[in-house]
């Protein structure tokens, strides 16, 4: 700079001879060279500060725009306009603004769905002319009278993320960025994804109905779940699967099947097709098979494929193919998904009227009587049985045997006339002797290890027969039933 450097202290501030040029021309000065306090070494810095301020103000503006223009705002404005049109200005003034929520303390749910779906309890918005998002909730006097909004919220039945205040995250729409929420919205869109013919009725919501109503035999308004429960009884599922401690050990315990982690379903395992009664790798993974069929990659799709042919997923599965139709598969998959571990406060537990498949507790009175009759029957017939030829049988014991044949889950693998997982059993009583049959029924596991015939059978059918905990008396009854079957050919 042209000016001479000011010295320490204000008395030196008077400007000296301006002609004196700075150090550049002088030989090395004695004192270290000190710059002028006014001499800016970084002239760009001030401009950079202005620039950063402007950028900062702009970014803050964007952030403020995001904060003050949430997605729901436009819905609320639109709803207010709708109310003004329909019911006048006075009514419109009562429309609340900002985040609205139903807090159900007992169920630990905060549902902010009503931030957008504002018309849910306004009577008079039922018509088709009202946009669906604002329409009154159907059946306010029936279903909702029994399940008031304040006690159930929205997501208890509909699923979805109650906390969220934007559509993608509230509806758990898995397109693009993943929404990390485990309760999808069970609405029309979801039903369409699975190609439900009746998607308009939101059939998947029945899953959530049955989460509380699982112990009822049937429930109005849940056709799929009712069908599934009927199938559960008919097919004797309890023979192999446990529910609340009751049932067989062959298959997995299904009490909380719906709470199984989705991560535990390996959809990248090979998918099998059945050729000549045996599973052969299809060359596709389960995931590829789901994609091929246009199914979403999900646990629900896994259940659909599994119910169609269990051995296509698990080639060693002992579970038979029940020849279920499309509707039945869906119904059973929904039943599986509904069996969740929930911690219901007492007042939410539905009043139970019937028991059965859904309530696994066997009617104890009935169980006692059957056991009794079995005992007496055995006492009566054991002596006789030793001498009688193979074709004769005790009709009463055979009747009991037929019942056991069903209840113990034998039907899962055996048919009388056709080959299923195991061989047909129509004339087995003629083919094999009594002792062999008794042992095979009571402890097939040790027979497979020791008996050459059993080993040969395993070679042929590849699925080992499982131990169903049959007592000796029960085995005798079953043999009587098989003898009876042999005569009825």
């Amino acid at each position, binding site marked *: 700079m042209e000016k001479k450097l000011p*010295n320490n202290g204000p008395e030196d501030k008077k400007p000296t001879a301006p002609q004196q040029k700075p150090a550049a021309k002088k030989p090395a000065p004695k004192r270290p060279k000190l710059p002028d306090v006014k001499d800016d070494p970084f002239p760009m*810095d001030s401009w950079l500060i202005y620039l*950063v301020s402007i950028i900062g103000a702009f970014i803050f503006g964007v952030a403020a725009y995001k904060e003050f223009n949430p997605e729901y705002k436009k819905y609320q404005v639109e709803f207010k306009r709708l109310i003004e049109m329909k019911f006048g200005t006075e009514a419109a003034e009562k429309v609340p603004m900002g985040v609205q929520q139903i807090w159900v303390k007992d169920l630990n749910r905060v549902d902010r769905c009503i931030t957008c779906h504002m018309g849910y309890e306004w009577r008079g918005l039922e018509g088709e002319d009202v946009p669906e998002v604002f329409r009154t909730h159907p059946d306010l006097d029936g279903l909702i009278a029994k399940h008031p909004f304040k006690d159930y919220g929205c997501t208890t039945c509909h699923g979805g993320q109650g906390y969220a205040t934007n559509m993608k995250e509230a509806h758990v729409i898995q397109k693009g960025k993943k929404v990390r929420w485990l309760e999808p919205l069970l609405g029309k869109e979801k039903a369409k994804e699975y190609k439900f013919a009746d998607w308009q009725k939101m059939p998947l919501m029945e899953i959530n109905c049955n989460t509380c109503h699982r112990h009822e035999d049937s429930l109005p308004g849940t056709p799929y779940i009712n069908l599934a429960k009927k199938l559960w009884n008919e097919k004797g599922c309890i023979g192999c699967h446990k529910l609340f401690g009751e049932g067989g050990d062959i298959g997995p315990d299904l009490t909380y099947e719906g709470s199984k982690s989705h991560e535990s379903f390996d959809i990248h395992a090979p998918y099998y097709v059945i050729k000549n009664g045996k599973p052969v790798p299809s060359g596709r993974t389960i995931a590829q098979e789901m994609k091929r069929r246009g199914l979403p990659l999900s646990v629900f799709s896994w259940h659909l494929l599994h119910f169609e042919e269990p051995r296509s997923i698990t080639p060693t599965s002992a579970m038979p193919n029940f020849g279920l139709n499309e509707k039945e598969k869906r119904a059973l998959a929904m039943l599986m998904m509904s069996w969740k571990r929930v911690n219901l406060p007492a007042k939410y537990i539905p009043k139970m009227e019937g028991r059965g498949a859904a309530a696994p507790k066997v009617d104890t009175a009935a169980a006692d009587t059957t056991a009794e009759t079995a005992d007496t029957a055995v006492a009566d017939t054991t002596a006789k049985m030793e001498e009688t030829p193979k074709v004769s049988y005790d009709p009463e014991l055979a009747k009991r045997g037929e019942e056991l044949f069903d209840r113990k889950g034998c039907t899962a693998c055996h048919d009388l006339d056709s080959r299923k997982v195991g061989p047909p059993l129509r004339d087995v009583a003629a083919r094999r002797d009594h002792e062999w049959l008794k042992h095979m029924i009571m402890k097939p596991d040790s027979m497979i290890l020791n008996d050459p015939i059993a080993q040969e059978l395993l070679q042929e059918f590849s699925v080992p027969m499982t131990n169903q905990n049959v007592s000796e008396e029960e085995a005798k009854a079953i043999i009587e039933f098989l003898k009876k079957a042999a005569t009825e050919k």
Partner: protein
Amino acid sequence: MTLKERLYKVWRALVWTFDPADRSEAGKAITRNFWLHWFPPRMTKKSLSWSYSFWLGTISWVLFVILTITGIVLMFLYIPSVERAYWTIKDLEYAVSWGWFLRNMHRWAAHMMVAAVFLHMMRVFYTGAYKNGISHMARREINWTVGMILLVLTLLLSYTGYLLPWDQLAYWAITIGVKIAESVPIIGPQIKFIMAGGTELGQPTLIRFYALHVVGLPVALLLLFSYHMWRIRKDEGLAVVEQFRLAKKRKDLQIDTSGDEPVYSTPWAVRRIVLVSMATLVWVMFLATFLDSPLEEPADPSWTPNPAKAPWYFLWLQELLAITTIRTPWFTINGGFVGGVLIPGLMGLAATVWAFLDKSPPEATGVWFHKSRTVQNIVFTLGVLFIVGLIIFAMYFRGPNWNVYWPWAWPEIPEII
């Protein structure tokens, strides 16, 4: 004097001036100001330049200030309980005014602070800034050691904060971290017990991590940071100043300092500090506005995401542990000691003591990549690449069951319905 002039004089006497009229005022502006008094009245132009320090230390400090301020606000909104923690974060995201912005700022500033502190360490190494040159007073290797501890404190702060949202990401990342600690031979189980406050992660863990995160670690970091700054002053400034001294006292080296000269701290250094602080703040705001922080499903000890990964800055330890674990059908040699203790311990120790052992000449002080330090710079770079490489590999190429996948061939996980 008019009233305005009088008031201005009072203001200047009480606080400081940004626009000193002369040298004395320029000096007083620093020494009389509480916040600035640990700065010298003059600094050299080089030590304030962008290209020498990249201002990484200042950036780290500004990030710490941002974290403290946003953190204090978050403390009013967060509840450190396993039942409530996750839902308070959900509320921040959806219901609290500016909650999303606050959380994003805190999260981004935290990640950036880990990166900035690490880069700061790299800068100091490459410039030989832990060396003392020809100064008789400087003990810069002490400050290097303090810096290493500050790096560890930064990592621990980030790690303890990682758990607080109590979602699946947090829960399992911390589980992995605790498992790494547990795999230390002999004392591992004790360390785990102390960290978790029990045998598994739960409320005792959360409250321990919370207390450390909001009080213990920040206070320790603040104290140590103050010492770090004080030492710079006692070490006679940044190492680049040594070049100035060498130029004067060792003419034989023919060091050219023509571009360097002392400048007044007020206003020039202060203005640059303001600029760096503002730029850092704006950058954090930018990230916070456009990139949302992740929040996964609520923490559930009964299902493990596959794979569960540690926070990114500990991923290299997780990877080291995995590759030093030898599995045969008959026995398994756990990589806990080699991967979890030996390798990272030796690396940290070597980096720390190197400052005391480096025998390169004084003219290598405060210069980028001085030719006398080429070998050690290469070794250091290999160490850094090793860590960064492992992190990138574990982050993008490790899939379910810790198997190797291409990032685009990651197997999909099914939805529920």
